[in-house]
């Protein structure tokens, strides 16, 4: 018998729909795998054994009755703690939402269930998606499956760790400044942040509403395309979702990239970039060049301001979005307050972790009267300049290639006392969120110490098809197969 947990979502779906294996067998294989290794990795915050098997049985019943099954039939998936599910809890890995049960499913959750995916449970994250190491979770620690003393990245660290340790075939995370791509790079999996507006955010607990986007973390590029076919599309409940015709994101997989122009932004190949990462990214560039892509140098001159702009815009939006957690309607309420204002203060002071409080204060400050023009308004203007940089660069190329992170996964505790050092981890990923364009991180090898290294491809807004085509071409021709870590 094969180990189904080692297979890709595409292979599983084919086998389940074709009757080679039952969805129950596949789900059981993954649940056993979770029981065997997740105690070490700590990706899952909730495992839904009974419910997953019931979902799998429903898929098997459909097949037995000769009914058509969905695009993810029998594929075991996991969801980041901030994607609303009526089942289980939606805690955002925060004490303030401990035990919170959402009365509704997010649009993405609904779409996944409608396409017959099997939800195994929820996975860990930095509290409210604020962080780059998953160390800010109020629930538990998550380890990098390749080296348990290291972080998996973040904020979708549980998602990346679960895909890398083969405890879910696809995991759905969210990316506000690199939160899908950076952990994907650290854990050696594929992570796609779609164009802003491509995927409905209804039911995604908001961090920064103009930057957030849900996307898949997968073992390969085909699975990312498959996942996109299911989750993307206009949603009347999200006014920012784009009204575009349905698209098959797998359609360009396998097409030649001969003549495609790939731009290397000179501002990304800077001193902060480690030499091992640089060498592997250059090797990846060569693979694409050998497939007929034309490599050109491009410039994104406002890159150096991206992190500063982000740390004004994102906390500003977060301070507004998190105001609702006041202990009145849901979640944690401090039990011991003498009046309502003391209840607010105590609830927020004890319910939110240190990093979340830091960002709420930062956001409130930059939005306050007297500072608004100097910080928030200025940052919005620079954000426009960053977007224009990409518009200009995409006149000279179809795809932009960069490193995903300056270094490989760091050890736990290494950067947790220095917020600025932690923020700089997202130096290569933040710009795509500010400009709203899609980005994908792919594994391109391992460092001397055996840690995965990733590189990033970016495309024009709503051109995920070309992005996935290029990524797939790389994957087919690069000899990079990390496999599954020994756990």
């Amino acid at each position, binding site marked *: 018998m094969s180990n189904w947990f080692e297979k890709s979502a595409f292979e599983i779906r084919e086998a389940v729909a074709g009757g080679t294996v039952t969805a129950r067998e596949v789900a059981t294989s993954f649940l056993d795998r979770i029981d065997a290794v997740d105690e070490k990795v700590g990706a899952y915050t909730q495992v839904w054994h009974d419910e997953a098997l019931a979902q799998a049985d429903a898929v098997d019943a459909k097949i037995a009755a000769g009914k058509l099954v969905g695009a993810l039939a029998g594929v075991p998936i996991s969801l980041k703690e901030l994607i609303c599910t009526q089942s289980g809890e939606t805690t955002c890995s925060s004490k303030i939402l401990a035990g919170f049960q*959402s009365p*509704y499913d997010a649009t993405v959750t609904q779409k996944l269930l409608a396409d017959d995916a099997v939800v195994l449970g929820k996975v860990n994250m930095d509290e409210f998606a604020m962080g780059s190491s998953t160390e800010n979770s109020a629930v538990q620690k998550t380890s990098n499956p390749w080296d348990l003393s290291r972080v998996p990245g973040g904020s979708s660290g549980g998602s990346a760790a679960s895909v890398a340790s083969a405890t879910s075939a696809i995991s759905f995370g969210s990316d506000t400044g690199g939160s899908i791509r950076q952990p994907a790079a650290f854990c050696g999996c594929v992570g796609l942040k779609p164009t802003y507006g491509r995927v409905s*955010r209804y039911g995604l607990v908001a961090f920064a509403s103009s930057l957030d986007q849900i996307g898949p973390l997968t073992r390969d590029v085909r699975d990312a395309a498959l996942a996109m076919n299911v989750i993307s599309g206009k949603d009347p409940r999200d*006014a920012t979702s784009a009204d575009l015709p349905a698209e098959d994101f797998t359609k360009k997989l396998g097409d030649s990239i001969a003549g495609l122009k790939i731009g290397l932004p000179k501002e990304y190949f800077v001193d902060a970039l480690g030499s091992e990462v640089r060498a592997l990214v250059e090797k990846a560039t060569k693979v694409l060049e050998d497939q007929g892509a034309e490599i050109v140098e491009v410039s994104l001159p406002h890159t150096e301001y991206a992190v500063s702009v982000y740390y004004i815009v994102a906390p500003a939006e977060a301070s507004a979005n998190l105001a609702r957690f006041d202990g009145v*309607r849901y979640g944690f309420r401090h039990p011991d307050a003498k009046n309502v204002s003391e209840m607010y203060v105590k609830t927020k002071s004890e319910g939110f972790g240190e990093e979340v409080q830091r960002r709420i204060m930062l956001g409130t400050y930059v939005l306050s009267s007297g500072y608004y023009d100097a910080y928030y308004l200025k940052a919005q203007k620079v954000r426009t300049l960053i977007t224009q940089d990409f518009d200009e660069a995409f006149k000279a190329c179809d795809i932009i290639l960069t490193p995903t992170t300056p270094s490989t996964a760091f050890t736990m505790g290494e950067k947790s006392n220095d917020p600025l050092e932690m923020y700089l981890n997202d130096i290569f990923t933040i710009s795509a969120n500010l400009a709203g364009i899609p980005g994908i991180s792919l594994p391109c090898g391992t460092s001397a110490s055996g840690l995965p290294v990733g590189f990033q491809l970016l495309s024009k807004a709503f051109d995920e098809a070309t992005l996935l085509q290029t990524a797939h071409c790389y994957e087919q021709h690069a000899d990079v197969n990390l496999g599954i870590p020994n756990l």
Partner: protein
Amino acid sequence: MEYEAVIGMEVHVQLNCKSKVFCGCSTNFDAPANTNVCPVCLGMPGAMPVLNR
């Protein structure tokens, strides 16, 4: 001493429409308690307002 007058007005109007401004819930006055509500008008985590058409 010089003063700058800043005058604000807060206006409460009951809109003449069948559903609430940011969600599809009915504005029917006589409904039983807790029936004309949804995740959006309750401000549940993850819910997003969409302006009434």
